[in-house]
């Protein structure tokens, strides 16, 4: 074994130590080998005198109060590095998804900015918006009705009709709210920025309708420069539709949870009063509290997905 091989081996096994300590002990060994060689011994013999390397490493680690078995597996899991790698992969994935999303939007926006459409732009944009909404509505409505059907069969009279009607009503309300917000954002954009060129405006309007949540960073400047063709635009449109319908479905989940939360707060209040009065209902109260907390966290999570904060460079 050469001196470098020996030092490399030690360096790997002592990675659990902090850098200063590791350098220190490696320096000592390097110096020892050097001096041994000066006194006439060969490199190989000097290292051979150290005996079994495993045992040596174990002794070194013990001197630092590290369990010698710590680094013995060839698969070395360093918690901090693993965490860093996971976050970097996740952020790359997020950026990738954001880039795809951005490209999809840009491609569709570009399709609509062709010269031919410019004349009928307002009408055309209106039709496009309605078409998209209908596209989104159909699958969601199908799911909503099926869900209402299930609820109908599960509950007994008179709740069956009541619950399913309420659910469908909520769904439609949410959907209409979303549509109106999309239309409103389009109209307000239209009024504010009349002087911009047609193509940029259309692209921007389209983007403003479908914002991506903040946690996937979108790099607009890079993405806008790419040239997509119509076929990939259509594919991306399908992807887009799926993602938007997911968002709408999330809203449908959100509203019942919100309503249950209100009931839950009332129930929790009542339970607390009962406990104070002396009824043995502490367990139930704690369960209710837990339910409330989880409800609120679900609301927060889904809400932050649906209603992202405005990013400065968007729109």
């Amino acid at each position: 074994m050469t001196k470098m091989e020996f030092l490399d081996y030690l360096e790997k096994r002592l990675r659990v130590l902090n850098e200063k300590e590791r350098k220190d002990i490696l320096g000592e060994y390097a110096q020892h080998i050097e001096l041994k060689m000066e006194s006439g011994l060969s490199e190989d013999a000097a290292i051979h005198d150290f005996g079994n390397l495993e045992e040596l490493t174990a002794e070194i680690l013990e001197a630092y109060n590290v369990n010698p078995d710590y680094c013995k597996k060839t698969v070395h899991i360093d918690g901090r590095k693993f965490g860093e790698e996971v976050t970097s992969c996740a952020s790359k994935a997020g950026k990738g998804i954001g880039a795809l999303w951005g490209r999809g939007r840009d491609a569709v926006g570009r399709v609509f900015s062709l010269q031919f459409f410019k004349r009928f732009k307002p009408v055309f944009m209106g039709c496009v918006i309605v078409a998209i909404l209908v596209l989104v509505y159909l699958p969601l409505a199908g799911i909503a009705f099926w869900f209402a059907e299930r609820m109908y069969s599960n509950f007994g009279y008179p709740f069956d009709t009541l619950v399913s009607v309420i659910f469908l009503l909520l769904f439609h309300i949410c959907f209409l709210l979303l549509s109106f917000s999309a239309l409103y954002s389009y109209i307000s954009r239209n009024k504010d920025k009349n002087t911009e060129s047609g193509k940029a405006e259309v692209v921007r309007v389209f983007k403003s309708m479908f914002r991506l949540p903040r946690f996937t960073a979108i790099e607009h400047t890079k993405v806008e420069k790419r040239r997509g063709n119509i076929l990939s635009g259509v594919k991306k449109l399908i992807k887009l539709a799926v993602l938007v319908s997911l968002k709408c479905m999330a809203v449908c989940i959100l509203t019942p949870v919100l309503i249950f939360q209100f009931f839950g707060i009332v129930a929790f209040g009542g339970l607390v009063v009962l406990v104070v009065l002396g009824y043995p209902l502490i367990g139930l109260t704690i369960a209710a509290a837990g339910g409330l907390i989880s409800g609120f966290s679900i609301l927060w999570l889904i809400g932050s997905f649906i209603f992202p904060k405005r990013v400065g460079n968007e729109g």
Partner: protein
Amino acid sequence: MNVQFKKGVLELIVLLSVTKRDMYGYELVNEVSKVIDVNEGTIYPLLKRLTNEHYFETYLKESTEGPPRKYYHLTAAGVLYKERLEQEWSDFSKRVNQFIEDGGKLSKQVLDDKGE
């Protein structure tokens, strides 16, 4: 030579070696090797441990023949520890020797009894 004997006494020998003057790693290893034949690599972790426990102080001193050398110096706590180890060794070796003497007589007696 029994490894456990050597392990037990190594600390004492290291501490004794540095009593007269400060030494650097390689020098120390050579000194210790004069008394007991021990794996040289294992002395460095021992030095590190004793330094962590504040029995040693280290400082770097430039040398004409290469990189600066780390010298080990016995602290006051180290001196006390060394004296304690010396005392313990003295007591320990006395008792063991005594036991061997007595044990020798005893085992001889047992053999004689059996023989009869």
